[in-house]
């Protein structure tokens, strides 16, 4: 394993310290670990907090700052943070407007964030959880833990962050976040495995002439292994998986403030269709040069145009990664005018500026 790290047990702490040293706009807390904005926000502002396992940088810590997140809780590598991390973090930054947790749909993240929300609501701090489950590689939620949360997370953090900055209240922020989730779809592939520092070796073995299609962001193998092929074919596989995905319904849990308990609400994602306008992300998984992502973007854009789907806004770069995995993912979020306007609002974070 070749990495720019020191002792394995200090990896996350030292990365956080480096971030804080580099960016005066953020501060860090180490016991428990969280990253938060240096400047206080307006009284009554909803605070938007995300978090999850480390290894996906710049997400989430890199998205803390004006117009995006108020704080982020990094767990160990690929391991959800703990409820007390989220609890302490929320107590530190909450500002009278309540707390919105943006949670990627993984068993661990969901459970830990639910516990945190329970603790905060019990403590009198209004807290809602919004799940992101946008990965079309996972086919259904009956026979799986449901779709994983991947690229839509970045777009949600930007849009909902801008909304909170603009004065949306907790309910409005939550409704907006659900809307973004219901309109987002992603699909990823890997050329290589990543190496978890503590493990010291690749999560899976893969030959020079094979690739994994339908991977997530935790170094897990994907839905299937196929022979290595060129960028255009890979892009076509990913794009088709997204554009051909049918309407998708699933129950998602949210906090019911009237009964003080979790309730399941059905959420439906309509299929994409001609005429849709999109916010798109062509994302590198950590070790993919940006030049290769542009090769992907070229074909992706062509395929969308051919279906009369317009990419109104885009990001091309490594925003939600899996350590040093080589590969890419594509995300499309169907946008309306409100979302576009919030997308265009100023954002100034370590990992995303506009």
């Amino acid at each position, binding site marked *: 394993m070749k990495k720019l790290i020191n002792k394995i047990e200090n990896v996350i702490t030292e990365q956080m310290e480096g971030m804080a040293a580099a960016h005066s706009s953020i501060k860090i807390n180490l016991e428990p670990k969280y990253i938060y904005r240096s400047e206080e926000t307006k009284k009554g502002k909803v605070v938007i907090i995300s978090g999850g*396992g480390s290894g996906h940088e710049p997400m989430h810590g890199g998205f803390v700052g004006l117009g995006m997140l108020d704080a982020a809780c990094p767990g160990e590598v690929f391991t*959800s943070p703990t409820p007390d991390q989220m609890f302490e973090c929320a107590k530190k930054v909450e500002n009278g407007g309540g707390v919105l947790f943006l949670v990627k749909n993984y068993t661990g993240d969901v459970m*830990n964030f639910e516990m945190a929300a329970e603790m905060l609501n019990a403590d009198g701090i209004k807290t809602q959880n919004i799940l992101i489950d946008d990965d079309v590689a996972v086919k259904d939620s009956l026979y799986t833990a449901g779709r994983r949360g991947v690229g839509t997370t970045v777009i949600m953090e930007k849009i909902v962050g801008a909304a909170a900055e603009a004065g949306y209240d907790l309910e409005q922020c939550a409704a907006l976040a659900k809307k973004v989730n219901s309109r987002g779809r992603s699909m990823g592939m890997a050329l290589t495995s990543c190496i978890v520092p503590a493990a010291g070796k690749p999560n899976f073995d893969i030959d020079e002439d094979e690739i994994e299609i339908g991977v997530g962001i935790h170094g897990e193998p994907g839905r299937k292994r196929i022979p290595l092929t060129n960028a255009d074919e890979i892009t076509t596989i990913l794009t088709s998986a997204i554009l051909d995905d049918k309407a998708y319904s699933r129950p998602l849990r949210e906090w019911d403030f009237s009964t003080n308990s979790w309730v399941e609400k059905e959420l439906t994602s309509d299929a994409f269709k001609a005429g849709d306008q999109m916010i798109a992300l062509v994302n590198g998984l950590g070790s993919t040069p940006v030049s290769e992502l542009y090769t992907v973007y070229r074909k992706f854009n062509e395929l969308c145009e051919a279906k009369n789907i317009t990419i109104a806004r885009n990001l091309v770069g490594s925003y939600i990664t899996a350590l040093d995995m080589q590969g890419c993912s594509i995300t499309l979020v169907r946008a309306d005018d409100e979302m576009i306007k919030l997308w265009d609002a100023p954002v100034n974070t370590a990992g995303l500026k506009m």
Partner: protein
Amino acid sequence: MVTIKQTQLIEWLKNITLVIRENKDILTALDSEIGDADHGFNMERGFNKVSEKIDELSRSQDIAMLMKNTGMTLISSIGGASGPLYGTFFMQAGAVLGDKTEITLTDLKNSIENGVKGVKDRGRASVGDKTMIDVLEPAVQSLSESVGENLSLEQALSNMVDVAKNGMKSTIDMIAKKGRASYLGERSIGHQDAGATSSYLILKALKETIN
């Protein structure tokens, strides 16, 4: 022996730590095949914390508090799926013990049963989903039967561990329906579940501590 004393349960916690450390690489390797290669580290981190705090935990006024404090320690140190699940297990296992400082086989069965119920409420997994439930649920079943048949504590624990082992092995042929392994669909077949394995180790440590 007809009861388990609080001090023996403290020994159990210490033994879990040892057995997890010994099996850390195996747990991680299992999790790397169909998960994200961290289960060994997660469990070790949690139980290292438990053993760091063992003096403090030992001062718990009764078994209920001991279990609850252990659960909270796990919740605040593990993260991932196993943190809330094992944390809930210990918290709920304690919740039915009142202020007891030693417990009978029936108490133990009630305790573990309630712990497993907590895990199922949190994780919503059933037997056959290829998770720790495939070990925990049959274990509870076995304890119930032992209570019904009036078996000795030793025999009950021994039966429980046999059943747990089978449960663990049974996960090999399953398609995962919960947790990360479920993303792999059919590709999850042929691999033993990591969490089922750690659950087996935890139950086995109980037997070995008591018997």
